[in-house]
């Protein structure tokens, strides 16, 4: 039997969840025995090259590119996991939810106390830049998500237990300490 295929991505996140994946320490050697990585920052494969079994999403959707990547993950992955608070509920980026986008941009690029070098008062407007969304969306408000692993970042043991349970079909062991929202 060929190994299950894994893909991961970071949308509007800080890469902390990916760091937590690496936090499984030496079990990473077991992980590469168990699965084959496809599109992921872990192996730097940029595009899907085959159907994927498990897709792991870090971060919510704050711009059009996040939405596009998330949709492509849904299309290419059999199972999708929202990993971490940002994917699950927007997380810290969603602190801007409720504040009009003009106000956010003004604060960040024109009026904020740390803005010094933007003399001509330019807001980023290059066509290459993804469009900001009106607010930050939890991933499950954009596509169907199959599993949720909370935490900021999710504990490495939670990630490990969940992946092993998914791959082997064994029941998950979830001690009290591994489910945390911070």
């Amino acid at each position, binding site marked *: 039997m060929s190994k299950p295929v894994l893909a991961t991505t970071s949308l509007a996140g800080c890469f902390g969840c990916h760091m937590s994946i690496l936090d499984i320490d030496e079990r990473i050697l077991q992980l590469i025995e168990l699965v084959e990585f496809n599109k992921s920052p872990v192996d730097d494969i940029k595009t899907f090259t085959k159907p994927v079994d498990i897709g792991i999403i870090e971060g919510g959707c704050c711009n059009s590119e996040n939405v596009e990547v998330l949709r492509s993950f849904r299309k290419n992955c059999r199972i999708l996991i929202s990993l971490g608070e940002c994917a699950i509920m927007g*997380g*810290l980026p969603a602190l801007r939810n409720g504040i009009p986008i003009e106000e956010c941009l003004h604060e960040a690029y024109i009026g904020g106390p740390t803005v010094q070098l933007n003399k001509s008062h330019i807001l980023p407007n290059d066509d290459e830049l993804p469009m900001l969304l009106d607010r930050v969306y939890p991933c499950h408000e954009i596509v169907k998500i199959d599993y949720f692993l909370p935490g*900021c970042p999710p504990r490495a043991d939670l990630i490990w237990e969940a992946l092993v349970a998914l791959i082997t079909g064994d029941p998950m062991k979830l001690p009290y300490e591994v489910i945390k929202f*911070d």
Partner: protein
Amino acid sequence: MSNLIKFKIDNKECMAEKGTYIVDAARENGIYIPTLCNMPGVKPKGSCRVCTVKINGRLMTSCTTPVADGMEIESSAAEIQDIRKSIIELIFVSGNHFCPSCEKSGSCELQALGYLYQMMVPRFPYDFPLRKVDASSPKIIKDQNRCIQCKRCIKTIKDEQGRSLFAFRNRGHRIEVVLDKELGLMMTEEMADLAMKNCPVGSILKKEKGFDIAIGRRKYDHEPIGSTIKL
């Protein structure tokens, strides 16, 4: 004493003094029923519904219902657990609970109930309501994003004449618990400490106080809420 009556919780024989509220009676018998708005020693208000149990096929709040002789109470059935979980989830989505940046994280009762019920994601959509932070008091910060309107501050923080320093403002979905502008100025250091302690969430924060308990040593880092009650 002759005032002792018998009743059952999940078929377990229990005893308590007549007139005791079910949550308290359960606790005396080593059974934990989760609560949020309720506080020992304060008249119950039955506002959060987290303590829901089933008696004679009816859902009731156990913090406001006294035990009666021969009463049969259901508390741990999957259906009741799920009702409680859904209430916790509702409270989460109807405020703005960014636990990773919250001063109360790790010692918050709402969050601890989320852990107890293994809330991986609320079943309801997040509301992201627009709420304010009021930092005008010299003693405390009142963060409306996290207030669950449990009234614990209103009931317990009072001046010498018995006037509450906190009060409700507005109605319906705009309702909020605020620090009274004038009475608030009389808040002492001790009152501020107590207000922060009595608030089950991170809505009342003392000024000039930072995170002072390391992650891993906070109240609910290792022990689930209610674990000191269970026999």
